C-alpha cells in the first residue's frame, strides 16, 4: 500500500498554503510494548477549532508531540500546515504555536521579559516585536503591568500571557494541550472568547481538554481512547448515537453509593457522576420501566428529582468508552 505522505507520492508540494491544516494517516507510537497511539487517522481543516478529547493516558499528548515534530512516530506520519512531521520537523515548529497546561512562563521574569524572550526565540524583528507586544498586552489585559513578575500574576492573566507568548510569531495553527485545566470558570470563559477570536481570524486551533462543556465550543471533535480514535465528527454527530436513548439525571444523597447500586441493575447500561448528580443511560428502556426511584428508596437512599435529559457530550463519551469495555 502506498501512503500519501511518502516522499515518492506526496499529495502536494511541501509548504504550500492550502489544503487541510493537519493530515494524519496511520500515525502510531509505541514505547516498548506499550502502544501509546495506535495508527490513528484524522484531518483538521483550516480555521476550525478541533477538539481532541480523551481521558488521561489515552494518547492525546503523545499525538500532539508527534505533530509538533518533537518525537518521531514509530510508523505512519502526516503533514502539519503542509510540512511533513517526520522529514521537516523544524519547518513544522516554525509554523505552529504550542501552549500547555503548565503555561510555560518563567515565573522569575517580568511580563515584558517573557515576551522578549519568546520574541527572540522566534526571531522577530524589533518592529514586529513592538507591534506584537502591544497587541498581546492589550489582549491579555496586562497593559501597565509589563514590569510585574510573572509569578505574581493570578492564574487567568498567566494563562492569557502564555497564549500571547505561544502566538507571538502569529502561527496559523496552535496546539493547546489542556490549556484551561486548573483555571477558574470565569477565566476559562474569557479564554475561550480569545480562542474564538483567533478562530475568527482564520487560525486553526487543535485543543485537548477534559472539560466536556468546552468541547461544545469546537467545530469538530475526535475522541481518543487507549490510543484509538473511537469517534469523530461535530458535537451533534458525536451525540447522535445517543439521541434515541433514555438518559436520566438523578438527584440523590450519597451519590457515589447510589451509583454503585444502580450500576448493578440490569436495566442500567451506563452510569456516572455528573457533579453531584447521577447520570444513568437506560438505552431504549423508559424511565417507568426501570423503576429506579423505588429501587433507590428501597435501598435507603433519599431521592430528589429524576429528570430525563438531552444527551450531553459527557454522556456520549461515557457511552463510547463503555462500548470499548472500559470505564471513563
Amino acid at each position: 500500500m502506498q501512503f500519501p505522505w511518502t516522499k515518492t507520492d506526496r499529495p502536494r508540494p511541501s509548504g504550500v498554503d492550502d489544503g487541510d491544516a493537519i493530515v494524519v494517516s496511520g500515525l502510531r507510537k509505541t514505547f516498548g510494548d506499550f502502544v501509546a497511539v495506535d495508527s490513528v487517522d484524522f484531518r483538521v481543516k483550516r480555521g476550525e477549532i478541533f477538539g481532541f478529547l480523551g481521558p488521561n493516558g489515552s494518547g492525546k499528548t503523545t499525538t500532539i508531540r508527534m505533530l509538533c515534530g518533537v518525537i518521531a512516530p514509530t510508523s505512519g506520519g502526516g503533514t502539519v500546515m503542509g510540512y511533513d512531521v517526520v522529514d521537516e520537523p523544524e519547518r513544522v515548529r516554525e509554523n505552529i504555536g504550542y501552549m500547555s497546561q503548565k503555561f510555560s512562563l518563567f515565573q522569575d521574569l517580568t511580563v515584558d521579559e517573557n515576551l522578549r524572550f519568546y520574541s527572540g526565540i522566534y526571531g522577530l524583528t524589533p518592529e514586529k516585536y513592538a507591534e506584537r507586544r502591544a497587541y498581546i498586552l492589550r489582549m491579555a489585559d496586562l497593559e501597565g503591568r509589563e514590569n510585574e513578575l510573572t509569578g505574581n500574576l493570578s492564574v487567568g492573566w498567566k494563562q492569557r500571557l502564555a497564549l500571547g507568548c505561544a502566538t507571538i510569531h502569529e502561527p496559523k495553527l496552535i496546539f493547546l494541550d489542556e490549556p484551561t485545566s486548573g483555571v477558574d470558570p470565569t477565566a476559562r470563559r474569557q479564554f475561550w472568547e480569545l480562542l474564538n477570536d483567533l478562530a475568527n481570524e482564520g487560525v486553526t486551533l487543535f485543543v485537548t481538554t477534559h472539560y466536556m462543556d468546552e468541547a461544545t465550543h469546537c467545530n469538530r471533535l475526535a475522541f481518543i481512547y487507549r490510543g484509538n480514535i473511537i469517534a469523530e465528527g461535530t458535537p451533534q454527530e458525536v451525540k447522535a448515537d445517543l439521541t434515541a436513548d433514555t438518559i436520566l439525571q438523578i438527584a440523590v444523597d450519597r451519590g457515589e453509593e447510589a451509583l454503585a447500586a444502580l450500576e448493578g441493575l440490569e436495566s442500567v447500561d451506563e452510569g456516572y457522576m455528573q457533579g453531584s448528580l447521577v447520570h444513568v443511560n437506560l438505552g431504549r428502556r423508559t424511565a417507568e420501566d426501570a423503576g429506579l426511584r423505588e429501587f433507590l428508596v428501597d435501598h435507603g437512599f433519599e431521592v430528589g428529582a429524576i429528570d430525563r435529559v438531552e444527551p450531553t457530550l459527557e454522556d456520549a463519551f461515557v457511552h463510547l468508552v463503555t462500548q470499548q469495555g472500559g470505564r471513563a
Partner: protein
Amino acid sequence: MRRILAIARKEFLHIIRDKRLLGVILVMPLIQLFLYAYALSFDVKQLPTATLDLDRTTASRQYVDALQQSNYFLVDGVLTSYAQVDNRFESGADKVVVVVGAGFGDDIAAGRAGNVQILVDGSDANAAQLGSSYAGALSRVFGAKVVISQIEQKGLNVSGAGGLTSSIRTWYNPEGISAAYFVPGLIVVLVTMITVLQTANTLVKEKEQGTYEQLIVSPISRIELMVGKIAPWALIGALDIIIIAVVGILAFGIPFRGSVGLFALSSLLYVICTLGLGLIVSARATSVDSANQLGSLIAFLPTFMLSGFVFPISSMPPVLQWLSYLFPARYFMVICRTVFLKGGSPAVLFPQIAALVVFAVVIVVLAASLYRERA
C-alpha cells in the same frame, strides 16, 4: 545567533533574580577562600609542647632551652613523671612531649650519645609528623653542637675539618605559606563546583517547571539551547576565577609568575569541560534533586580527592592514581599551581593543556549527542 542570545539573556535574568544563587556565585567563593586559606593551614608553628626532664643536669637544661627558643615549639608544660603524658595528650593541651632520659648529662659528658625521647600525639597526623621531624632535626643540630664543643675542648680546630653541610632551600614558596599552595588549588575546586552544579540544574529545572516543553516545540535547536544555557555560566566561571586569583594575590600575597594568556586559555578549556559535564548530568537527571546529587558527586569528589588539592597524587594507592587521570581536575590543578608559583612555559605545561583539550572535545561531543537524542 539571535536565539542563543535570547536564551543567554534569559539565563542571566534568572541568575540576577535569584539572590541566593548570586550569593553562591559571588560570596561563597570568597568565604571558602578565607576558610580554606586559614583553616587548612599546614604551617606548623608554636606547636604546644611539654617537657619531661628526668635528668636535671646542665646539659639537659640546655637541650630544653634550645627547644624553647625554636619558633616551632611552644613549651607550655613541664612534667615531672611519665604518668602525666597521657593526660596532656588526652586533654589536647600538648601535641608533643619531649622526654630527656636520666643520665643524659652523664652520657654527653662521657662522650656517649645522650638519650632523648620524642612523643607525639598521632591523632593529629599532620602536627605529629611535623612535630617529630622538627624535634628530630633539632636534636641532631643540638647533638652536632655538643660534638663540636667536645672536640674543641680537646683542643682541636674543627673549622679545618671536612664534613658535610646540607643547606635546604624551598623554591617557589620559600616561606612555606600554605595559602600559596591552596589558593591556586581552590580556584580549581570552586570553579568546578559552581559550573558543574549550576549547569546540571539548569535543564532539569526547565523540565520541572514545564518550560522545556515549550522550548522544544519552538524552532530553537538543541545545540543553540545548549550554547545559550552555558554561555552565562562560562562568564561566571571566568569571573570567579578572576575574583579568587585577585583576592589571593592581594590578601594572601600569592605570587603570579606565569603567563596570564596561558592561564586564561587553560581556564577556558577547563570551564568548557566542567560545563559539559554539568550538561551531561542535566540531560540524564530526572529531577533537580538527582541533578544536584549527581552533580556534586562528579564535581566534588574527584576535584577534592583526586586532583592533588589536599592529598598528593603521588602518595595515593595506584588504583586511585589511575582514576585521577580520568578527571580533568588533576591537569588544571597542575597548571594553576605552576602558573601561580613557578611560572611555567607553554612547553612545560603542554601535556596538561593537551589533556584538557582532549577532555573538552570528548565532553562537548558527548553532551551534544546526548542533547540531540533526548527529545
